[in-house]
C-alpha cells in the first residue's frame, strides 16, 4: 500500500481513538495487535486471505480481541481487516503510534524482551531511556522470544542492544 494510504488510514484511526477519548489505550492495544500479526504467520495468513469472506475474518478479530482489548480497538482492527488492508495493519499502527507520540511531544521507543516486563520495570526503563536519550518517550514493549534474553531498545535511529542473541552472534564472529 502506498505511504499516502497508510497515512490516511493512520490519521483516521488516530482521529477516531482521540474522539473516543482513549487514544493511549487504543494505540497501545493496536501496537500489540500489530506485533502479533507480524510475528504470527498463521494469523497473518487468515486475516489477509482474500478467499475467506470478510465477515469471517472480522469474526476472527473479534474473537481474538474480544474481552482483551477495548471496544474501540476491536472495531478499528475490524475496520482495517474489512477494508482488505490487514497486510498493512502493522505499518498503519506504527504510523498511528508515531502520530500519537508526536501529539504528546514524545518519541516512540520500542523495546523487545524475551519475557514480559512488569509495570515497575516498564516505568523504570522508560525513565532510564528518557534520561539516556534526553527525550520524552512513548515506550512500547514487545515480547519477542527470539532475543533469547536481555533487552534491545530502538529510539529513532538509535539502538541499544544488550540481548543474549546479539552476544551469541558476537561470540560466533570471534571464532
Amino acid at each position, binding site marked *: 500500500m502506498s505511504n499516502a494510504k497508510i497515512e490516511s488510514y493512520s490519521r483516521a484511526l488516530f482521529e477516531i481513538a482521540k474522539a473516543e477519548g482513549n487514544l493511549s489505550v487504543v494505540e497501545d492495544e493496536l501496537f500489540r495487535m500489530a506485533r502479533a500479526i507480524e510475528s504470527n504467520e498463521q494469523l497473518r495468513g487468515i486475516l489477509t486471505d482474500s478467499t475467506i469472506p470478510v465477515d469471517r475474518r472480522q469474526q476472527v478479530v473479534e474473537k481474538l480481541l474480544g474481552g482483551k482489548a477495548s471496544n474501540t480497538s476491536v472495531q478499528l482492527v475490524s475496520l482495517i481487516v474489512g477494508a482488505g488492508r490487514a497486510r498493512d495493519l502493522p505499518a498503519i499502527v506504527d504510523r498511528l503510534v508515531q502520530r500519537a507520540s508526536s501529539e504528546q511531544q514524545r518519541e516512540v521507543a520500542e523495546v523487545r524482551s524475551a519475557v514480559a516486563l512488569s509495570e515497575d520495570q516498564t516505568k523504570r526503563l522508560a525513565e532510564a531511556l528518557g534520561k539516556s536519550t534526553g527525550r520524552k518517550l512513548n515506550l512500547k514493549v514487545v515480547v519477542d522470544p527470539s532475543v533469547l534474553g536481555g533487552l534491545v*531498545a530502538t529510539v529513532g535511529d538509535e539502538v541499544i542492544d544488550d540481548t*543474549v542473541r546479539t552476544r551469541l552472534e558476537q*561470540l560466533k564472529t570471534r571464532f
Partner: protein
Amino acid sequence: MNLMSGVLFGAGDPSQTHHWLLPETAEIIYGGIASLIIFSALYKFAWPMIVKSMQARTAKIQKELDGAAAARTKSEADATGIRRALGDIDAERRRILAEAETQAAAILVDGRARLVKEVAELEAKAEADLAAARGRSGEELRGEIVRLSSAAMAASIVASLNDRAHQDLIEGFINSVGATK
C-alpha cells in the same frame, strides 16, 4: 582302239553327217559371231560397271583399312595417354602418401607436445585442487566446529536462562541505560 576311235569320230555310223560332239560349221560360225557380239557388248557395257564396282569396293576397303589404321593410331595414343595418366596417378599417389605421412608425423609431434603440456597442466591443476581441498577441508572443519560449539553454547546459555536470569538481565539493562547520558 577301234571302239574308242569310233566313239570319238563316229566312224562306225556312215549315216551320221557330222560328228556327234562337234557342231556343224555354220553353227560354229553363227555361234562364234554371236559370242563375239555378246562379249563385245559385255565389254562395252558391263565391264565399266564391273570396274567401277571393283574400284568402289577397293576404295571402301581402303577406307575401312584407313579407318582401322586411324582407330589403331588413336587407340595407341589413348593407350599411351592412359599409361602416362597411370604414371601420373602413381606419382600423385606417391606424392599424396608422402604428404600424408609428413602431416601425420607433424600431427604426431604436435599431439605429443600438446599431450605433454595437457598432462603437465592437469597435474598442476590436480595439485592445486588437492591443496585447495586440504585448505577447504580445514576451513570447513573449523567452521563446523565453530557452528557446533556455538550451537552447544547457545543451547547451554538458553537452558540456563531461567526467570531469575531474565530478571537480572532486564535489571542490568535498566541500570546500565540509566547510568549513561
